């Protein structure tokens, strides 16, 4: 999967789970910038990303998924190009 598709898919999942428009998810999007991104939504986001990409995150990786860029790095590391 190419990086643009990964990026767009993550944005769609984030918009749906966090209940924000795609426009509100900028490159610097993180738990700091999106108020709705609380711990419950975070777990739902992780599960949806795992289903969407057919991957699994370990406990430490789940804790580290703190921003859009970190999610992209983590997904790209697990999804074949």
């Amino acid at each position: 999967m190419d990086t643009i598709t990964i990026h767009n898919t993550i944005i769609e999942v984030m918009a749906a789970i966090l209940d924000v428009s795609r426009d509100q998810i900028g490159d610097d999007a993180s738990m700091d910038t999106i108020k709705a991104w609380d711990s419950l939504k975070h777990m739902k986001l992780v599960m949806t990303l795992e289903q969407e990409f057919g991957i699994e995150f370990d406990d430490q990786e789940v804790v580290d998924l703190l921003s859009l860029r970190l999610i992209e790095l983590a997904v790209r590391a697990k999804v074949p190009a």
Partner: protein
Amino acid sequence: MRDIKEFAVGEKARLSHLITLEDTRRFVELTGDDNPLHVDREWAERSAMKGIVTHGMLSASFLSTIIGKNLPGPGALWVSQNIEFLAPVRLNDKLEIEAEIVEIHVRQRLLKLRCQITNQRGRQVLTGECLVKLLAKPATAEAAPAAPPRGIIVTGASRGIGAAIARKLAADGAAVIVNYRRDAEAAASVCRQIADAGGQAWAIRADITDRAQVAAMVEEAQARAGGLYGLVNNASEPIAERDFAALEWDEVMAEFQSQVGSAFGCIKAILPHLQARKQGAIVNIGSIVADQAPPPTWIPYNIAKAGMHALTRNLAEVLGPGGIRINTVSPGMTDTALIADVPEKVRLLTQMHTPLRRLGSPEDVAGVVAFLMSEAARHVTGETLRVNGGKTLL
């Protein structure tokens, strides 16, 4: 305030005062002593004293005046007094109050004074002796010398944090020595930037692990800057990642020599110049790895940086009495070539785990170094100032 050593036995002070009815009235108002002997003319005239006698302590109070204002004057603490009242003082008597130094105890800062008061007929009305302590002068910050030397050496100043420190110190008025080892063009570029901004800087090549080269650099720096005030031990090699299993002790020692050994040698070399003027400031660039769980593959670097922190603390006490300050500036992860090999994920996570949510910049570090070099930090030594956006809080 005079110093205790400025006084001499036999030194005298005098003052005069005319005792009036108003003096008596105010003394009664102050003390509440309205004994009719002092205030009731008819009563006093019928007494054995045949008239009003003014309060003895009213006369004696002028001893306080002469001690506080004349001998020894401001800063005097009246410790003890014996008094003998020899004759009554009447209204409208003109008193001559005199104090004379009879003993001086320099170590205790004490003066023994003989006191006497005579009236207008030359008759002694009061005699006594007192001890007066001369208090030490209130502590005040010593005035800074008019024009301290401006030369500051910054090691490893051709790039990254060192270059930012050089630019900032020059902008603050220092004459900066841009030390470099390999990249002459980069060092020259830093000097040009400083000159373009109206500052003064010279690039001097020296391998700071080499004692002779350091000595030559310091001498050249002294000559060019016209006097040295400070040193920033900043130089650091790129961090080599090594697993402990593959690590050799020689590699640890090489890094230790490169950082702590070099800082040690540079301090030794510049010290005579700073000690000669009894002023100067040194900043060691440490690292957050000395505070927090250090990266496990950076062992030589971590040990060396811990050594830099220890060097500061050890030397603060040694150099302080000579007027020389030494402090550590401890950056967190800073956006320079030094972290070029740090994975993006680690950098992003560091940002997210930092209260100020970003990596440090070389200018962030430079600002704090400049503060420690400045007069504003004149009473700061042995400190570690962390520049990491609050990372060590978490």
